[in-house]
């Protein structure tokens, strides 16, 4: 190990975090090199002096007791809040499922009506064969997905919707067409 390499690893040497091989090489170098011994000594002195002075500057400082009071008060509020929130979410959730189903049915009917009015079957290999009096309807419907998850002591529910689209053959009468 040369001086440059030693001084590059000086902090790790001081920390004792060099590999055993590098540590031994550094110690061998130190025993032969007065300049690096001096650099090491200076670094130790800086560390000791600065640590001491930073501690002397701050030793008498104490965290004011009101901080602890405020943190504990905030915790108490936080523990109360989820319970209230949970109550309100659950009262709302009683309507979630019927509302979701009603929305699905409404969208289904609207989809059938619009598709049946605008869609005209064309001849072609990709079109399904339709019997006389049938129309091809694109149905889109929404499925409500109701999930629960637990975070700590709190149960959180979520209502999401998934839209599905399918093509169906329907009697023209059913779609309101003559």
């Amino acid at each position, binding site marked *: 190990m040369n001086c440059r390499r030693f001084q590059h690893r000086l*902090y*790790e040497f001081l*920390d004792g*975090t060099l590999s055993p091989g590098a540590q031994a090489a550094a110690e061998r170098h130190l025993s032969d090199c007065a300049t690096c011994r001096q650099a090491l000594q*200076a670094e130790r*002195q*800086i*560390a000791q*002096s*600065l*640590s001491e*002075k*930073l*501690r*002397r*500057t*701050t*030793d*008498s*400082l*104490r*965290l*004011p007791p009101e*901080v*602890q009071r*405020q*943190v*504990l008060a*905030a*915790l*108490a509020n*936080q*523990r109360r809040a989820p319970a209230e929130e949970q109550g309100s979410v659950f009262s709302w959730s009683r309507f979630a499922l019927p509302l979701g189903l009603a929305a699905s049915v409404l969208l289904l009917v609207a989809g059938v009506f619009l598709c049946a009015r605008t869609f005209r079957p064309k001849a072609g290999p990709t079109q399904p064969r339709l019997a006389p009096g049938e129309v091809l309807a694109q149905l889109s419907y929404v499925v409500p997905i109701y999930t629960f998850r637990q*975070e*700590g*002591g709190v149960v959180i529910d979520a209502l999401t919707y998934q839209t599905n689209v399918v093509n169906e053959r329907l009697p023209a009468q059913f779609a309101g067409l003559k």
Partner: protein
Amino acid sequence: MDEEQLVQGLRSQDPRAVQEMVASYGDRLFRSACLLCGDQAEAQDLVQETLLQAVRSGPRFRGSSSVYTWLHGILLNLTRHYHRDRKRMVYDEELVRQETGPPEENPSRLDVEMTTGALTDVLGGLSGPHREVLILRFYEDMKIHEIAAHLGISSGTVKSRLHYAIAEMQRRMPGELNLFSACGTEEKAKR
């Protein structure tokens, strides 16, 4: 309450664990915050917000680091935001005077006042990243690789910042208040 029980308590937001966390680490965090931001009132706010964030995110704390390291990481982030808001830090003179006490009660008052005053002034003149590594190294006694992990930077960057910060402190210290000479100021005061 040992560290493991404390972590469990913080995860379940147990008020006794929160109380223990503040009692065990509050002062230490506050001192570190004073050095990082240079203002006691701001330091108090920063530590309070740190503890509140810790309480809120307690259930997500995995315990992969010590509780103090985790808290200090939150404090560092908050301090950076604080520095972003205040481009240049003004060091609180109270922090400088805190140590000195009344003249008759403190025989080495002159020495302390001179060195701590110069120290806090010079710390206040360093950039945030340089001040951070200096405080983590010499106040928090962290090893180079620990500082690197704590700040999310490489060990090389830590060493380079540390080297610059020390050089800058030595450059800015007036000759007669040489911070790094063990008894320079005492000798001067005796003369």
